[in-house]
């Protein structure tokens, strides 16, 4: 049977950062990802990242992805692709399918870095071809280089909605409008500024009433919402559009954590039910760590830091780092994570993450 020191499930920014950090210590690391290419959501992120130099600010996401892949090669991390993990059993036995066949691998430590999936939204016409996740559109334009449509309506003004609107225009589409049900724009003002300058109107307190079309999207009818989130009569607007992109939040992909038996807590700002973890990113199961969007949806920069943290912690518990070495590394990472979770946009997540840690303490 295949064995490894540390098995990382998911080759997104969290999983790859974890693998690199753990491999630096000398540990044997195997990364499993269901896709044919590694990188998770990172290769579709072609914008320059925020943060500071230590967070690789100012560097475009896909270039960070390339750097991470180069590092995994340099450090002899084994990356198994087309490896969909479907089960985690006793003694950290992992079952996965490659090319339709069953395989297993046994690990001393497991890191779950499975990411998140996009939420859907129900409205008349929501299943018509042309209605898709904003991340789906982002994948199509930036990874596959095809436009899903020419005239786009974006729903949701969080950073994903704002960034993907901008990137759709960079790929040559027009964004007809961005609508947001809340009375305020959710994402960063600087991201909103980019698309406003390009002439995209942002309608707050507005929702989709109906998507028009028989075989595919042909138009959208929007309506304004009052303070109680009810449609206001006679506020309908009609837009010509061939594509509707939904950027209405992400939910952590936690099936494997449930199955493995991790305990959960419910924290809406992190995307709902999230596995409980401690300061080392260890879940309630000894030897099973979690990192990235699975622990609560944030962004790629914090996913990478959480990955590193889990990597250092695994290496420490396997004896590749002594306590002092590990603590020095962890202190740096905790500082960087805290830096990303400050300010009016970060504070909410900071408090939410504290709650998640608190849940761990209560169990102990």
């Amino acid at each position, binding site marked *: 049977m295949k064995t490894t020191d540390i098995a990382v499930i998911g080759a997104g920014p969290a999983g790859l950062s974890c693998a690199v950090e753990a491999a630096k210590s000398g540990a044997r690391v195997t990364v499993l990802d269901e896709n044919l290419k590694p990188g998770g959501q990172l290769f579709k992120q072609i*914008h*320059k*990242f*925020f*943060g*500071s*130099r230590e967070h690789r*600010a*100012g*560097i*475009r996401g896909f*270039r960070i992805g390339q750097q991470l892949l180069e590092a995994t090669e340099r450090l002899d991390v084994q990356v198994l692709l087309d490896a969909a993990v479907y089960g985690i059993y006793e003694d950290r036995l992992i079952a996965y399918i490659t090319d339709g066949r069953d395989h297993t691998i046994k690990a001393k430590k497991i890191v779950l870095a499975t990411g998140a999936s996009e939420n859907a939204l129900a409205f008349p016409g929501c299943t018509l071809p042309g209605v898709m996740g904003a991340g789906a559109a982002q994948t199509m334009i930036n990874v596959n280089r095809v436009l899903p449509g020419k005239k786009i309506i974006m729903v949701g003004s969080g950073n994903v909605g704002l960034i993907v609107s901008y990137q759709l*225009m*960079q790929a*040559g589409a027009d964004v007809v409008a961005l609508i947001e049900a809340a*009375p*305020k*724009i959710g994402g*960063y*003002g*600087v*991201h*909103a*500024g*980019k*698309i*406003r*300058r*390009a*002439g*995209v109107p*942002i309608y*707050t307190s507005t929702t989709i009433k109906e998507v028009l079309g028989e075989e595919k999207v042909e138009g959208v009818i929007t309506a304004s919402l009052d303070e109680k989130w009810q449609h206001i009569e006679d506020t309908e607007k009609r837009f010509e559009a061939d594509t509707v992109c939904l950027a209405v939040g992400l939910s952590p992909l936690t099936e494997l954590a449930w199955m493995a038996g991790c305990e959960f807590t419910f924290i809406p700002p992190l995307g709902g039910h999230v596995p409980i973890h401690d300061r080392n990113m260890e879940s309630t199961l000894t030897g099973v760590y979690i990192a990235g969007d699975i622990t609560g949806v944030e962004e790629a920069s914090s996913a990478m830091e959480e990955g590193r943290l889990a990597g250092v912690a695994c290496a420490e518990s396997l004896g590749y780092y002594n306590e002092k070495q590990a603590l020095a590394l962890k202190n740096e990472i905790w500082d960087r994570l805290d*830096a*990303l*979770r*400050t*300010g*009016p*946009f*970060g504070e909410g997540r900071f408090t939410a993450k504290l709650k998640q840690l608190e849940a761990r303490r209560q169990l102990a």
Partner: protein
Amino acid sequence: MMQKTGVIYQGFRSEKELAEIPGVPSDERIKKGSVAFIECAQEIPCNPCEEACPYGAISVGKPITNLPKLDEDKCIGCGSCIAACPGLAIFLVNASKSKGEVSFPFEYYPLPKKGDEVDCVDREGNIVVKGKVLRIIKPPKYDATAVITVVIPIEYIKIVRSIKRLGRS
């Protein structure tokens, strides 16, 4: 219903917000020559602008959510900070000549050419005036972000923030 103003409602900074943020230079400084105009109005975790300035004219400090503060006397208007800003929120303005100049980051295809007459737009994307492209720079270290400088009537230097995207042929 009255449209509420401000970045969280409209997606761009109102004049009132701009007047209050520490990245915006004084009118006197703008008249003396090219200077950075930093429209970063929310406390987000970010500081590449601070590192990008070779003259130490931008300070963010700790925590990195502080708003970037411009020392307008140290700024020589070199423009190095423009492409470093992931928020595309830094511009360069110059009112020292009879015509005004504005430089801005631009990440669309295609680029205009030097000397082209272009439609200049405000923060809401409205075409407000014609301008002439004075310069386009895009060195490798900007990593695909172009910085375009347009010449416009001087009264527009605080209004024009980009150009209308050009059509793809």
